[in-house]
């Protein structure tokens, strides 16, 4: 069987790359993709801890949480992309460093 630490290291890598996309990319859609990667890393951890926890046949809370995360991510990405399209229609750009309307 695969050791638990392999899952955790994989999830840590996916989370870190998602964090870099969210902090360092210029395009708003790329930032949204980074957030999706981070949610996936959390899901990998949830499922891995469910599998290696006590009585995985009975305590399936980890899988239930992962399914909740998937559904919330679907809602989040729908609203986020609608916002990006709306911003693009008004400002003709989705570069985050040009969207400084609230900067004093």
């Amino acid at each position: 069987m695969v050791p638990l630490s392999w899952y955790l290291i994989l999830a840590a890598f996916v989370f870190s790359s998602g964090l870099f996309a969210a902090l360092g990319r210029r395009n708003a859609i790329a930032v949204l993709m980074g957030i999706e990667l981070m949610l996936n890393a959390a899901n990998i951890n949830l499922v891995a801890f469910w599998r290696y926890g006590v009585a995985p046949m009975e305590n399936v809370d980890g899988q239930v949480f992962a399914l909740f995360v998937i559904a919330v991510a679907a809602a989040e990405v729908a609203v986020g992309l609608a916002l990006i399209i709306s911003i693009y229609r008004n400002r003709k750009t989705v570069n985050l460093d040009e969207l400084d309307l609230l900067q004093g």
Partner: protein
Amino acid sequence: MAELFPLPPLPTFAQVVFMGIALLTVVGSLIVVLSRNLFHSALGLIAAFFGAAGVYFIAEAEFVGVSQVLVYVGAISTLIAFAIMLTRGMMFGVTSPRNRQSGTAAIITALTFVVLTALMNATPWPQAGEPITDGEAVIARIGSMFVNEYVVAFILLALLLLVSLAGSIVLARDRK
């Protein structure tokens, strides 16, 4: 490498499969982060989603894996591809895909990964989980948890999906 992952002398079949799937996930997420073309980023994201689904299958969470393929690969990737095409002016001719603070972001991200990996190596983890004898019983248990323990969250989630889908239609509508 050998200090990070204490490999057994001969990896089992499941471990080899896991390594391949993990490689797919890692390469996919690297493409998402580093690619200059936004569409290549979206394709890398699909690869990373498939890799995560494979990880769920290896962990014997089949239902989550199927949901991952349906929701992420089927729906979210399509949404992102449509959004890229609708904001097409941004796909080409960008001077740099990264913003001004990307250097700081890279340092913070590398530190996060190093600290997380060091903490994981310092903690003793179980090498094997308890065996799952009946996969269908697990799925039945998930279903009964959705309508018993987590029924309030389940209904709220349905409401959230309805509101967010209606709201995104209103937001993206052309007001003319």
